[in-house]
Structures are given as structure tokens and as C-alpha cells.
């Protein structure tokens, strides 16, 4: 067996950290910590992108890393923290499934993700192809986070974490999407957050909370 170069080992370690952070987000009920975990995940993603950029010498990846840093480590977490303070939502209510149960489902999802990623990583020509499985797992775990939460805020963080998984997948399998697409996606994510900000205040004015159960309760009256 040929020894894995040190840079690759480091990359794999970062990929594993991404996965761990996804599990941490799955278990976290404090919304503030959830946002911090999301920022940390962004930072790990940024580090992985930088490392890969340095190894392959692709300029696109440097830009992509800068985008990740600006958007997912600095701007979005700040926006979210500000929203949390202004709206006063600090805790999520009990998730739909208790936390150990969610973790077990999460484990099964990871196994499934690696199975699904098999043909993809077999095709990918990049050195980081083993990470594709982790990317798929991060996407699906973020999806699970969204399903099991009731507060709108936690669902949004889950949604953003899903975007992290998507970026990591694109990066590890193909060294990033074409620049124009990446810029477009980043713009969309930013606009989505601004729209959400407006939206949260509208919901809050009407319902005095961001609990989605109130929306559900309203529906049954109809």
C-alpha cells in the first residue's frame, strides 16, 4: 500500500471534521451554538479549499475559498446572530425525534451516503475522491437537521449547512464548479438570507414567535 501524502491526510482529517460538525449540529438545541457550529463548519470548509488550492495550484479554488470565508464564516453567521438577538430566539423546542434517536438515524444515513457515493468517487479523477462520501453524508445530515427541527431559525441553519455539503462535494470531486456558477450560487445564498431576514420580522409581527407549530396550528383552524 502506497503511503498517503501528508497533505492528503490533512485533507481527510478536515473532511472528517466536517462530518463531526454535522453530527454536532444535529444534536445541538441552542440556536446560538448552532450558528457558531455552522461558522466553524464554514471555516473548516475554507481551510480544506485552501489546502486543495495550494496542492493543485488552481486559482479558482483560491477565489472559492475567499468566497467561503467571506460569506459563510463572516457575513452569514453575523447576520444570523443579529437576527437571533433582535428576535430573541435562543432555544429550539424539543425536536420531533429525541437526540439519541436522531443520532442513530444519522449513523444509518452516513452508511447510506457512502454507498451512494461509491460510483461517483469511482469516476472522479481528483485525489480527494474519498471525500465525496463525506460530502453526501453532510448534505443528508443537514437535511435530517431540517426535518427534525421546529424553529424556523434552526431550519435555516440546516439549509445553509446543506449548501456547505454541496460545495464540499463539488470541490472534492471536481476541484470546484465553473466560476460563474459558483459566484451565482453565492449571490443566491446571500440574497436568500436577506429575504429571510425580512421574512422573519414579518412572521414575528404576526405571530410573536418563530415557532413553526403556530403556523401549523393556524392551518388546522381553516
Amino acid at each position, binding site marked *: 500500500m502506497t503511503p498517503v501524502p501528508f497533505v492528503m491526510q490533512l485533507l481527510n482529517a478536515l473532511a472528517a471534521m466536517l462530518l463531526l460538525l454535522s453530527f454536532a449540529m444535529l444534536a445541538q438545541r441552542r440556536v446560538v451554538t448552532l450558528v457558531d457550529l455552522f461558522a466553524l463548519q464554514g471555516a473548516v470548509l475554507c481551510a480544506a479549499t485552501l489546502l486543495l488550492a495550494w496542492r493543485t495550484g488552481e486559482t*479558482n479554488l483560491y477565489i472559492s475559498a475567499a468566497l467561503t470565508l467571506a460569506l459563510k464564516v463572516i457575513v452569514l453567521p453575523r447576520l444570523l446572530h443579529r437576527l437571533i438577538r433582535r428576535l430573541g430566539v435562543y432555544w429550539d423546542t424539543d425536536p420531533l425525534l429525541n437526540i439519541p434517536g436522531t443520532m442513530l438515524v444519522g449513523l444509518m444515513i452516513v452508511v447510506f451516503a457512502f454507498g*451512494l457515493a461509491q*460510483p*461517483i468517487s469511482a*469516476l*472522479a*479523477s481528483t485525489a480527494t475522491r474519498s471525500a465525496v462520501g463525506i460530502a453526501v453524508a453532510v*448534505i443528508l445530515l443537514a*437535511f435530517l437537521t*431540517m426535518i427534525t427541527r421546529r424553529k*424556523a431559525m434552526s*431550519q435555516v441553519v440546516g*439549509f445553509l449547512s*446543506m*449548501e456547505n455539503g*454541496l460545495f464540499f*462535494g*463539488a470541490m472534492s*470531486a*471536481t*476541484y*470546484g*464548479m*465553473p*466560476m*460563474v*456558477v459558483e459566484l*451565482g*450560487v453565492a*449571490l*443566491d445564498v446571500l*440574497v*436568500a438570507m436577506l*429575504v*429571510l431576514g*425580512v*421574512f422573519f420580522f*414579518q*412572521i414575528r*409581527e*404576526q*405571530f410573536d414567535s418563530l415557532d*413553526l407549530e403556530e*403556523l401549523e396550528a*393556524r*392551518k388546522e383552524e*381553516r
Partner: protein
Amino acid sequence: MDFLFVIGTPLAGALALIWLGAHRVAPVANVLFSLVTFAAACVLSVHVIAVGNLTFLHEQFFIDPLNVFLVALTALVGLTTSLFSRPYMRIEAEHRRVTPARLRLYHSMYQLFIATMLVALTTNNMGLMWVAMEAATLSTVLLVTLYQTPASLEAGWKYFILCGVGIAQALFGTILLYIAAEKVLGSQGVSALLWTHLDAVRHQLEPRVLSIAFVFLLVGYGTKAGLVPLHSWLPDAHAEGPTPISAVLSGLLLNVAIYAVVRCKVLVEGSLRSAWPSEMLMGFGLLSVVFASFCIWRQRDIKRLFAYSSIEHMGIIAFAFGMGGPVANFAALLHMTVHSLTKSAIFFAAGHAAQKSGSQSIDKIRGLVTISPTVGWGLMLGSLAILGLPPFGVFASEFLILTTAMRDHPWATPILLLAFGVAFAGIFARVQPMVFGDTTAKRLPHSPALIPVFVHLGIVLMLGLFIPPYLAHWYRAAARLIGGG
């Protein structure tokens, strides 16, 4: 040049209308920008008829038979809806349902939405198509919540989160497509997401990756097209937003989402050389048709009623594209056209009907023919057209779809017929009392301007009796391009 006008006009319009705000010329400016867009789209179509396929801006955008008629259709419905929205939104403002600040948002987002639709249709880059589809959601979320009622906020949240998650799946599908394409087209990254390049090498793309990609793409864009079981955002978003937005969501957004699915299907089927993407499309389509036609019976809100009818028709279109082959594809394209025109006409009429009665509840809308004959007859004729009564165009396309189904997939025919019957009875039983029922309300002193309704229904009627040769030629060329069957 004409192409830049098609994309640029609505973008410029969005900016100009932010600046104009709630000024009283804003609605007129909205109409003017839509008119210029439509004129540019017409010039572009004529240009394409003359010289054939075109590409623009380093092949990032292209026009072929499949998207050119959709561009023209989008621009046309954009224009007529802006015409309809002028008196409609004025009445809404008079009733104090919208503030001037919200009207500014409304007009500028309306133009932005049209621009995103046109970009999604004309882009050659599968990644940009995704970006445009997401932008289309974002530009309409705040329009769905324009009235700030609890129900509209719920609808907006559902729309945002469901379409957001759905579209994230489509992004993953796009990434997978890129992975497979990079293998064949090289990692320069410039051409590997361009549809024309992908189409040229589709037989060499790795089938297993593409089949996974297709599942994600179908789920993603299928959510936007409102295919069951991913449809639950659609009736809420249609019912709670202002009516012009219901008309463009139903008439344009759903079409563009189906268009995205079809583009993906062409690539995947070429790579797989097997029919399962078609079968999946047929399955989703049939499920949507049956589910929506039964849901129609439970509706008490006029706009929700027709929203479910949209789901049903998207199901019919998906089913027809799933069957594939020249006839079914032709029928599906025709159905996209006539559904889009008829459904927006119905929403125009339904919007006025709800405004006159002060409620969207079907039980409270009665005797439209007495109150206002144009609204009443518009709603009645539109409903008959959408239910597939001859001689309207919907009859022609549904007839073609049914006969193809009888030939190729006989098992599906009774299911389709049953669903059509259920939907017919459901919608007719609700529309009839709304139009002809007894009412105590007095006749309106002035009749509303419903020219767009009758223009749309006129075109649909014409398409049922006679399809102009150049249009038939486009449809046939597009049907060949989609292939399958």
C-alpha cells in the same frame, strides 16, 4: 442584439421600478417594459426562424426550437399579466390591502421574476439555469407574502423552504452532471456544463453517475413544477399571493421547471440508453394527475381550486414527456402553451371575481353573470377550456396524449380518463354556481377591462382549430430534439 434586449429590458425594468416606487406611472412603466420585452422576443423569434439556432455571449446562452417558443410565450404572458395587474393592483391599493412601499416591491420584483424566467430558459449553462431558478423563487417569496396576512406568511415560508430544499437537490444533481461531464469534456471547466456540449457527448457520459444525478435533478426541479408528492407549497403560494403573481407562477414558473426537467432528461436518457428516466417521469406525472384531480373536490377557495388544476396539468405534461416520441412530445409542448395561456386567463377572471365578491371563498362568489358578464363568461369559458372541451387547444393536446397512451401504454389510459372525469366534475360543479347562481348583488355600473382574458382564450381557441405552420414546425423540431419513446 435582440437577445440582449430580451434579458436586459426586464432587468432594467426592475431597477427603474425601484426608483419610480409608488409613483402613479409605475404600473404604466411596468406595462411598457413588458411590452418592449415582448417585442424583443418577437424579433428574436423571427430572427431564429430566419437563421436557425443561435448562441450568445461565449455560448453561455443559446436559442433552439425547444426554448424559443417558451421565450415568446413567457414574454407574452408577462405582458398580458402586467396589463391585468394595472387595474387589479389599483383596486387592491384602494382597498388598503397594499401600501405604496409594497407596491414598489411588487413592481420591481415582477420584472425581476420575468428576467429570471427568461435567463433560465435561454441559458446554455446548466449551473446558471440553477441559479436563475433559485433567483425566481427568491424574487417571488416576498410577493407571496405581499398582503402580510398570517396565511400568506405561512404560504411564503412553505414556498421558501420547500423550494429551497428542492432546489438544493437540483444543485447536487448539477454537480454530479458536471463530474460526469468533466471526465469526457476535460477539466477546463468552461464547456463542461454547457448543454449543447453535453448533448454532443451524451452517449459517452458515465451512466451510473448520471442516473443518480437525474434522481436529484428530477426531485429538485420537480418540486418547482409542483409534481406530487412535492407539491404542497403550490396551492398555498397561488392562493395567498396577489392574483397577477398566481397567474405568472402557474403560467410561467411551472413551465420553466418542466423545461429544466426535460433538458436533463434528454442528457440522461442519451447516456443510459434505457427508459427508466421516462418511466419515472410518467410515474410522477400520473400520480400528480390522479392526486390533484381528487384534491379538487375538497377545495373551498377559488384560487386553490385552480392551483390544484395546475398540478393536474403539470402531471399531464410530465406524463406526456415521459411517454416520449414525436407525437407525445408535440402534444406536451402544445399542452404547455395552452395550459399557460388558459390558466393565466382563468386567474385574471378569478381575481376580478374575488375582488367583486370581497372573498376568495367559492361559497361567497355567486351569480357572476349578473354582476359582471365579462368576468362571468371569462371564468366559464376559461374553465371549459382548461377542462379540455373542444374546440379549445387543451382538447387537441389532451386528445393526442390520450391516443398515444392508448397505443403505447394502454394500462394508463383508464387512469387518465378517470382523473380527467373527476377533475371535470369537480371544477364544473364549483364554477357553474359561481357564474350562474342566484345573487342579490347589483350589477356593476362599469364592466372591468378583461381584454387579456379574451386574448388568451382566443389564442387557445385558435390553437385548437388551427396551428400556424411555423409554430407546428417549432413544435416538431423541439419534439425531435427531445426524442425518446
